[in-house]
């Protein structure tokens, strides 16, 4: 990465650019009504419906934990991933996508800052859903292991970050990719076990889920809230991290492709 000049200065200027993109993305979310839908309203709806259904007589009591955390996970994933796509689409509609592309800062640096902004807001989704569970349904996490829970959440964040940063350039390059965004979002709800365990899925679906990094982190996250095992945290964290880094390796080639193809097609200016 020699973007001309002494490496120390180059790195400092790129960190500053990424941080500026992060601040911008946070500020735009604060003032956008849509953003509150994604991190506040939708997760809350999922959590309340989940908690209601899972509290009905006949539902297994161990299931309730999916109501407590599931809404937050859905909100976190939606903001981290959907907002990466929405962010690009908004730039396109604003006419700023072309402007930022033409600056001396590589696109991945700008998206790095934006994705981090999305992750921060995504984490907020756990606040209303946990509050709804506690105050509305008196539901708590039965046997919370705080350290393992925090590490699992950190590993999950890594996986969301890697997926968002890998997929964001696709939205820049292909306008049609944006139309696929909701289908993939819901697919991950199912395959990664946000609201029910992956074990209830068909064997082939469980096989597909195994290739998705969040699956293993979500498994660890839920395991950190219940006492009964088996618990293999180290392996789950390792698989999540390994898969996440593999996505990043793919992203390296994807960004090179975007840098080139966007300049061939000239589609960045199109809405």
């Amino acid at each position, binding site marked *: 990465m020699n973007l001309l000049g002494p490496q120390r200065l180059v790195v400092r200027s790129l960190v500053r650019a990424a941080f500026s993109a992060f601040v911008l993305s946070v500020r735009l979310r604060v003032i956008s009504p849509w953003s509150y839908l994604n991190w506040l309203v939708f997760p809350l709806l999922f959590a309340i419906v*989940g908690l209601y*259904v*899972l509290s*009905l007589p*006949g*539902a297994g009591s161990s*299931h309730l934990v*999916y109501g407590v955390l599931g809404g937050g996970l859905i909100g976190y994933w939606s903001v981290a991933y959907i907002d990466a796509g929405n962010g690009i689409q908004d730039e396109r509609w604003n006419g700023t996508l072309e402007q930022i592309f033409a600056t001396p800062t590589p696109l991945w640096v700008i998206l790095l800052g934006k994705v981090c902004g999305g992750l921060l807001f995504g984490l907020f989704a756990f606040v209303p859903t946990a509050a709804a569970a506690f105050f509305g349904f008196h539901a708590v996490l039965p046997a919370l292991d705080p350290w393992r829970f925090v590490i699992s959440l950190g590993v999950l964040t890594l996986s969301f970050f890697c997926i968002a940063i890998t997929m964001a350039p696709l939205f820049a390059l292909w306008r*049609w990719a944006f*139309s*696929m965004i*909701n*289908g993939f979002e*819901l*697919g991950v*709800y*199912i395959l990664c076990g946000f*609201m*029910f*365990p992956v074990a*209830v*899925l068909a064997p082939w679906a469980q096989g597909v889920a195994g290739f998705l990094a969040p699956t293993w982190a979500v498994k660890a996250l839920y395991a950190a809230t219940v006492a009964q095992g088996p618990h293999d945290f180290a392996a789950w964290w390792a698989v999540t991290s390994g898969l996440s880094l593999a996505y990043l390796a793919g992203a390296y080639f994807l960004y090179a492709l975007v840098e080139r193809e966007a300049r061939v097609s000239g589609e960045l200016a199109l809405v």
Partner: protein
Amino acid sequence: MKHLGLEAGVFARSLYLQYVALFQWATVRGYIAYKVLLPVTQILFFVQWGVYATGRQNALYLALGNALQLTANAAIFGPRS
């Protein structure tokens, strides 16, 4: 009566233009994304969730409910475009 006729004409023309525009706007990818991928995954998610929470006996109810909701979406979002 003449006024009503004129308005009916405007209605008919806009109806026709909307219909034609639909095919100008449509793409195979867009159709697959919005009319196949999204509905199928939504139905699968809610059915699987409901079955996990309440048992297999409610699966059809959840599938039909989601199908109805997805159909209603077109009516809700239609006037936006």
